[in-house]
């Protein structure tokens, strides 16, 4: 069983541990999700309603971005796979913002507030540290995460100019690696439509 397949299987894991009666109730539920090998999908994008934003003067809405290609990146600053992917996302932003791409970070905490992931100042500091200039929404109640049925950090949803979800996937990638090129090609494809 490959690690990825195993990881899928683990989504329903029931854990028996010592004499502890343990019930697994992971936020992640049973069904598998595409990881690195993203699949094309065609469903209407759903309007997110996050209230707290960074790197933008006003909240961004799906309706307000009609005519632009949108890449949603579900991440959290405590996720190493997520921050390793940031240089690629910053590169996409620099290359394609003026050509019609809007990249939006959906910052979704893994743990309750005691871990510091909900703190806006902490998020702002990390945006600066990683040179992230694209807008970010705080998804502290996981509302947008749940809306899009996300299961893993980091995850990506690519939306076309008409507001249709065209590609989804998850997993770290790096500048100019195979999956970077995959996402780069998809962005170019949707920008050209």
């Amino acid at each position: 069983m490959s690690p990825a397949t195993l990881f899928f299987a683990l989504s329903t894991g029931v854990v028996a541990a010592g004499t502890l009666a343990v019930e697994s109730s992971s936020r992640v539920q049973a069904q598998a999700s595409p990881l690195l090998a993203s699949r094309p999908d065609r469903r209407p994008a759903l309007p997110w309603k996050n209230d707290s934003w960074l790197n933008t003067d006003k909240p961004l809405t799906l309706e307000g971005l009609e005519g632009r290609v949108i890449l949603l990146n579900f991440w959290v600053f405590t996720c190493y796979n997520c921050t390793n992917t940031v240089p690629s996302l910053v590169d996409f932003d620099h290359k394609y913002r003026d050509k019609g791409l809007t990249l939006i970070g959906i910052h979704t905490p893994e743990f309750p507030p005691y871990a510091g992931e909900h703190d806006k100042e902490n998020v702002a500091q990390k945006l600066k540290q990683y040179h992230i200039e694209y807008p970010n929404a705080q998804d502290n109640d996981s509302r947008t995460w749940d809306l899009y049925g996300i299961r893993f950090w980091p995850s990506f949803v690519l939306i076309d100019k008409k507001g249709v979800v065209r590609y989804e996937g998850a997993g770290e990638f790096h500048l100019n690696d195979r999956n970077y090129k995959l996402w780069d090609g998809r962005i170019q494809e949707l920008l050209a439509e």
Partner: protein
Amino acid sequence: MSHLGLTAWAAAALAFSASCATPPKPAEPLGVQTTLIGPNTRLTLITAPGLKVSALLKPALELNDGRVLRFDSPRLTPDSAYFAEPPSALAPGRHGELRGTLRASVCDEGAAVCRTVVLDL
């Protein structure tokens, strides 16, 4: 009780009869080893093969009385992002008396993704 809950209790009962230190089975992401140390219990997290626990977001045991215990280990991977040996925490009381919620960010080496594993004790 849900079907999942019943299954979990049954699995836990089996584990009780077998051992007090059960590593995760192949289809389980995380197991908890318990070791009595005087009046306290050391909890150690064991991952299934191919998985690793994030050290950037240290696992936490949220006890029902409001206290939060964080798991730790002195040995990390070279990038300091993951535990290189199982993290542990010392919880007050005997393990049969522990009640709370355990959280860990568990990451897949192959697919380079993480997810939260939540265990209700």
